[in-house]
């Protein structure tokens, strides 16, 4: 198990290896590639939220000067095995949301392509849409998919509820009966978008033998390869995917929208095709996260011991099944050690874009509900909200609500650090409110490969397959340097394409530094093992008699040999003489991704004239296991906090009654700007993950979980009453203040 170490590289804050290219405009992102003879593709999108597609005719568009290809659903393999993803990339018999792709063209310029879209004829039979989770669950609701049955049970009538998940323990009724105080929160959170600044983009080309090459911005090019193959009915081996730099994803770039369409248009035209979404398309047609309706109930004894908790969650999946309600159910009570609880979640189809993963998918909405209830409970009991959580907190050995027993976790340390934090011990300013909330995310492991290649001058090139979305090359270099015992600047990390590196799952689930980091460490250990063999051969001793320390091979103490230590550089220089190039490699299916807990608190001020809430200070405290590059760990905590604050305060999809999003741009879908925010204070707690050689836990997702409830609880404190729904935007807050005054 990893203990506190005197690391040389880990824990330092060097400049990232890809940094200079990114501050000078050299780095190539998704839309930055241009190929000779390249065409520009554009997508025609459904003007209806729900409609049968009777006919699509692209002939007039194809006849237009400068147009070289056009396609629609009929051009893609369609049978009973056609995946939802394929139907989401290009509608077949039904358009399921406003903005659903129904046809595409490729033309000499983007401008011609756009005008050609006007010439595509589509005959629709508009259907009434179902637009809200409660409406969709009601008896007699309009069905998004007439063939969908809850949990696949075809003996029951078709339903918009794709799945119901349940977690129970003990006797929840008995638990509530034992309680002295019971509180309940019922809240709705509307659709929100990941809001990455770079729109989806790709360029594709395919040759006469059917071999396709795709350049794109993605969180996982191996997934792009398999998903594109799936949509096109091709084999994985026929597709090569080269990842560009990626301009943000937050889960939204773990799936595909454009790539198979661009390949198809390239196949039809015989020329490379580039497709770049507009911001409006990103909002209307790419995965936002679920709008939710949640109820949370919690009961406790006077002394603060929680006797029971229950939750009912309903998550919009969009047009196809797959809302992140399962993880929501599994997260909602994870911070607590409970005897009696019940949790029920619903995955519900509506005529809105199919949701995609968004940073700790499903957890922020669920924990907003429960952490609001816990806050109300603390008020009812007259307890400090940290003390209440300490009294009930999960710890090593606690059985998590979703089954297993927690190994070492950092939640209590986060709570204790909050209590001692100067921002918390400081009295809040006159007229302001303070709110606390807990956050949790699992983190995932999954498959990764890495190579470490020793160059002839002793420098090391690490090659792995996870797009660098926030400084991961630097983290890989640090772990490699630590393992090999060489300075950071002797290692470079390269993100290889699908043909130049082994398989890696997506950059997501907070897994990259953990799982790919593990592969990199093992690849470096492989180099060390080979270097020891080369040294042993050079010294004519047994390999068991060689140690590795501080980047060099040395004879073990007591081994009687006349030998100077051999550095990595020495061994590299003579690699040809001792057997050839030295190449370390590793592939893992990483297990034991450690859960990461957090505590956040905010001080806010409410302007009662305008309803505007200002965040005066925000503090994030989180268990990172071991912070490999602390500046980028802080960056994750700060960035996640501000995304969460945006979600809490302003961000929401506003739909008209026909299911058309009315605010599909950054002017009206208002993400936080610099002048909205204070500095975000962070404190990294380090409870090393026993399953990683350096104790890494994933840190990327947990930061967005607690800010929703922390903000709601702070507003509750400032206002004197709770507004359960989000966002706490000026119109909603003002209306609530007026209603309160009337009451």
């Amino acid at each position, binding site marked *: 198990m990893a203990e506190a170490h005197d690391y040389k590289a880990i824990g330092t804050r060097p400049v990232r290896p890809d940094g200079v290219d*990114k501050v000078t405009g050299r780095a190539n992102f998704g839309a930055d590639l241009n190929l000779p003879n390249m065409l520009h593709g554009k997508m025609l999108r459904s003007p209806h939220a729900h409609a049968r597609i009777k006919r699509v005719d692209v002939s007039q568009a194809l006849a237009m000067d400068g147009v070289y290809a056009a396609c629609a659903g009929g051009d893609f393999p369609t049978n009973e095995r056609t995946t939802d993803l394929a139907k989401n990339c290009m509608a077949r018999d039904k358009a399921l949301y406003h903005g659903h792709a129904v046809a595409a063209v490729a033309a000499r310029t983007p401008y011609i392509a756009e005008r050609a879209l006007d010439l595509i004829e589509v005959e629709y039979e508009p259907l009434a849409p179902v637009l809200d989770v409660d409406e969709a669950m009601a008896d007699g609701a309009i069905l998004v998919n007439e063939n969908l049955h809850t949990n696949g049970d075809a003996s029951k009538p078709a339903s918009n509820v794709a799945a119901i998940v349940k977690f129970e323990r003990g006797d929840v009724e008995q638990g509530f009966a034992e309680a002295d105080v019971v509180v309940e929160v019922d809240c709705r959170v509307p659709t929100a978008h990941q809001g990455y600044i770079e729109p989806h983009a790709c360029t594709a080309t395919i040759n006469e033998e059917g071999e396709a090459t795709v350049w794109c911005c993605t969180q996982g090019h191996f997934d792009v390869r398999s998903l594109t193959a799936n949509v096109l009915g091709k084999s994985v081996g026929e597709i090569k995917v080269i990842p560009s730099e990626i301009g943000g994803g937050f889960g939204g770039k773990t799936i595909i929208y454009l790539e198979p369409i661009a390949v198809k248009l390239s196949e039809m035209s015989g020329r490379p095709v580039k497709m770049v979404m507009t911001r409006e398309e990103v909002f209307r047609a790419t995965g936002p996260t679920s709008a939710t309706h949640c109820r949370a109930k919690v009961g406790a004894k006077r002394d603060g011991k929680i006797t029971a908790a229950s939750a009912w969650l309903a998550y919009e999946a969009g047009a196809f099944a797959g809302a992140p309600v399962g993880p929501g159910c599994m997260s909602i009570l994870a911070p607590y050690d409970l005897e009696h609880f019940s949790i029920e979640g619903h995955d519900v189809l509506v005529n809105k874009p199919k949701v995609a993963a968004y940073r700790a998918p499903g957890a922020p909405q669920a924990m907003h509900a429960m952490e609001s209830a816990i806050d109300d409970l603390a008020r009812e009991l007259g307890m400090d909200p940290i003390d209440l959580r300490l009294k009930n907190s999960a710890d090593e050995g606690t059985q998590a609500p979703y089954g297993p027993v927690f190994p070492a976790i950092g939640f209590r340390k986060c709570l204790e650090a909050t209590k001692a934090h100067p921002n918390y011990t400081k009295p809040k300013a006159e007229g302001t409110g303070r709110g606390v909330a807990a956050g949790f995310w699992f983190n995932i492991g999954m498959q990764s490969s890495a190579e470490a290649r020793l160059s002839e001058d002793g420098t090391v090139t690490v090659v792995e397959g996870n797009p660098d979305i926030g400084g991961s090359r630097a983290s890989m270099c640090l772990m490699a340097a630590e393992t090999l015992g060489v300075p950071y600047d002797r290692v470079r990390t390269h993100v290889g394409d699908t043909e130049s590196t082994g398989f890696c799952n997506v950059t997501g689930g907070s897994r990259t530094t953990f799982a790919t980091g593990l592969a990199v460490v093992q690849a470096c250990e492989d180099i060390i093992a080979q270097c020891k063999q080369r040294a042993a051969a050079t010294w004519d001793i047994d390999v068991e008699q060689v140690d590795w320390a501080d980047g060099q091979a040395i004879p073990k103490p007591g081994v009687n040999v006349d030998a100077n230590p051999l550095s990595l550089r020495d061994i590299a220089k003579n690699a040809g003489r001792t057997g050839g190039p030295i190449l370390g490699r590793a592939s893992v299916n990483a297990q034991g991704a450690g859960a990461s807990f957090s505590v956040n608190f905010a001080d806010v001020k409410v302007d009662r004239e305008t309803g505007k809430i200002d965040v005066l200070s925000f503090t994030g405290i989180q268990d990172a296991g071991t912070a490999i590059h602390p500046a980028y760990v802080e*960056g994750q905590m700060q960035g996640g906090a*501000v995304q969460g604050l945006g979600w809490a305060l302003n961000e929401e999809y506003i739909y008209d009654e026909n299911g058309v999003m009315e605010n599909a741009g*950054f002017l009206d879908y208002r993400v936080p700007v610099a002048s909205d925010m204070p500095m975000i204070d962070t404190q990294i707690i380090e409870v090393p993950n026993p399953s990683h050689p350096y104790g890494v836990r994933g840190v990327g997702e947990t930061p967005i979980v607690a800010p929703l409830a922390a903000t709601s609880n702070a507003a509750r404190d400032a206002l004197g009453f709770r507004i359960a729904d989000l966002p706490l935007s000026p119109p909603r807050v003002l209306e609530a203040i007026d209603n309160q005054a009337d009451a």
Partner: protein
Amino acid sequence: MSRVHVTLSVNGEPREMLCEAHQSLLDALRDELGMTGTKEGCATGDCGACSVLADGRLVCSCLMLGVEAEGMDITTIEGIAQGSELHVVQRKFLEAAALQCGICTPGFIVAAKALLDQNPNPDETTIRYWLAGNLCRCTGYDKIVRAVQDAAQELAYEA
């Protein structure tokens, strides 16, 4: 469609380009001159990823037409470093880890340089309001604001 001949200066170098009349300066820079350092995040002037200096003034190049740049002096992210020497703002962004994905970074650096050119000693509030036209979804702005503060401090020390 007939294209318009535009003569301008880009990063101090005389350039010519043929623009379509409706083409934004952003698209002209990227597609006609091949300068892809300037990024598109929205094409509606809301995100600032396409920030450039037009005759020294900070603008969203997506809101300007290429033909409007006739005779102008345009500075893009590719022109902020002097030869092989990074501008202090670029250096401070690197040292302060003020970028994560990096897509907004060119716009922020151009905007921050424009601020420091006219106000070498801005306070935190001034920095935050000046940069309010640039969206960053990764960093939460904390390290960006600190990088600009660090750059201002170094400029003040050198002055």
